[in-house]
């Protein structure tokens, strides 16, 4: 595949010394049901880095995220977090699922859903209300503490899930197409909010999306996976200035060039 070489003059980020990587895949292969889903993937994510993973559907991007989360164990190779093998999920690694409607507890209010994470980290009941207020405020849901998920819009539900993840005080945030089911305006608003939240907390992010522009807009680096089996096909460093802006960033020639490059990659990978 011609496109598999890094197309930019930057040194590939995978060459960063493993000691510095927060999340590291080394020669990770995963077989599920007799099929190889992920094959020989190696990648390093530095602390505080925003890494986006794109790829055609069925290329294993969600699977890669679940490996990083410790929800799957690799068949061979190793996934490490701060140098320790991910044998199970960790509380300092939070996962934002795509299907927010299924990931929230429908019998608990917004406050109750955030409280679930605070209960598990052992925060005393007396301190929880203040923290819940703070978190709901942070994600833009200050007046919805008493609402049930069924009474909230999709965008609000996803904000709530993000608030619950932030309650874990994660060092890393793993997001699986979090805005895939939302309308364009809500999605852009949430993109900016996530960038702000991440900048404020300094968390490492792996963000899976099928939206190429979203990946470029958000990421420090974009990795494209090739399907059957999933492996790294392209790696682009995004040098667009921060803070990013929905209008000006997307109009920059560099943005358009990156978009073209990813588009060609996806097209070639589907052929």
């Amino acid at each position, binding site marked *: 595949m011609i496109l598999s070489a890094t197309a930019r003059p930057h040194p590939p980020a995978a060459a960063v010394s493993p000691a510095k990587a927060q999340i590291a895949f080394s020669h990770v292969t995963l077989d599920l049901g007799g099929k190889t889903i992920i094959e020989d993937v190696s990648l390093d994510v530095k602390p505080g880095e925003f890494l986006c993973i794109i790829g055609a559907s069925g290329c294993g991007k969600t699977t890669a995220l679940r490996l990083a*989360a410790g*929800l799957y164990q690799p068949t061979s190779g190793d996934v490490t977090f701060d140098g320790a093998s991910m044998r*199970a*999920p*960790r*509380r300092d690694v*939070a*996962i934002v*699922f795509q*299907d927010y409607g*299924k*990931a929230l*507890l*429908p*019998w*608990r*209010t917004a*406050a*109750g859903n955030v*409280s*679930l*994470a605070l*209960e*598990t980290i052992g925060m005393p*009941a007396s301190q929880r209300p203040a923290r819940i207020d703070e978190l709901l405020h942070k994600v833009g849901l200050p007046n919805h503490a008493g609402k*049930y998920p*069924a*009474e909230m819009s999709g965008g609000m539900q996803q904000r709530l899930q993000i608030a619950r993840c932030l309650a*874990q005080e994660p060092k890393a945030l793993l997001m699986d197409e979090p805005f895939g089911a939302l309308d364009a305006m809500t999605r852009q608003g949430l993109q900016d909010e996530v960038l702000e939240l991440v900048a404020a907390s300094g968390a490492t992010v792996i963000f899976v999306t099928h939206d190429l522009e979203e990946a470029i807009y958000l990421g420090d680096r974009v990795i494209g996976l090739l399907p059957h089996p999933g492996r790294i096909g392209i790696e682009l460093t995004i040098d667009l200035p921060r803070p990013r802006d929905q209008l000006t960033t997307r109009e920059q020639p560099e943005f358009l060039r990156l978009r073209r490059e990813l588009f060609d990659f996806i097209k070639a990978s589907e052929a």
Partner: protein
Amino acid sequence: MSGERWKAAALPVALLVALEIGARASGIQSDALAPPSAVAVALAEAFADGSIIGATRDTLASAFAGLLLGGAVGLALGIALGIFQPFDRLMEVTIEALRPIPSIALLPIALIALGFGYRMEIVIVAFACVWPILILSRAAVRSIEPRLIEVSRALKLSPGDRVRKIIVPAALPRIFLAFRLAAGIALIVAVTVEIAINPIGLGASIMTAQQALRPDLMLAYLVWIGLIGYALNAGLVVAQKHLFGPAALAGEAR
């Protein structure tokens, strides 16, 4: 209340009126039948002398005690079987062998082991209630949204918290439905045990009225049992709507 409900009541009321007119017109003397007016009088008398109240207390006490006992066992087993697949496979033959035994068939054994009275009746009711609650709560646990189980894994909930905070609340609406079903079964089985052998409660009162050649009193008890069953179900439906209504899928929102 609503017009629809009155429409639904029209047929039974018309039937009662027809029965009354028919009975009076033909002037029958029967050991099995009585005009509705005589049944109503017998029911009022049974209330006046307190006999029906005592019998109702005995029957409901046995039915509820059996429901709680059987429900607790069925619920615990159902949740455990729903969570642990290997345990389920281990128990499968045992459960499928015990489940088809009609609870009433246990009467002779229970009678020898426990004698007449509450205890024997409670055990038989409990046996009858274990199975529907076990099967339905097992199915309820299995049908929990897998994403919620993943959320509990991602948050690293302890096994106890996972059951308490995720599995039970998520399965609660369906578990409640199982209890509603079992409550009806409990009443049926309790009255059946009393009619068959146990000299307490409404079932035994029906047998006494039969032997005293009092069809009016016998039918009065029948009507009363029907009313209890109706009220029980209606009460549980209201509780269900109140607890699990669309806007308030409320379990424990702290």
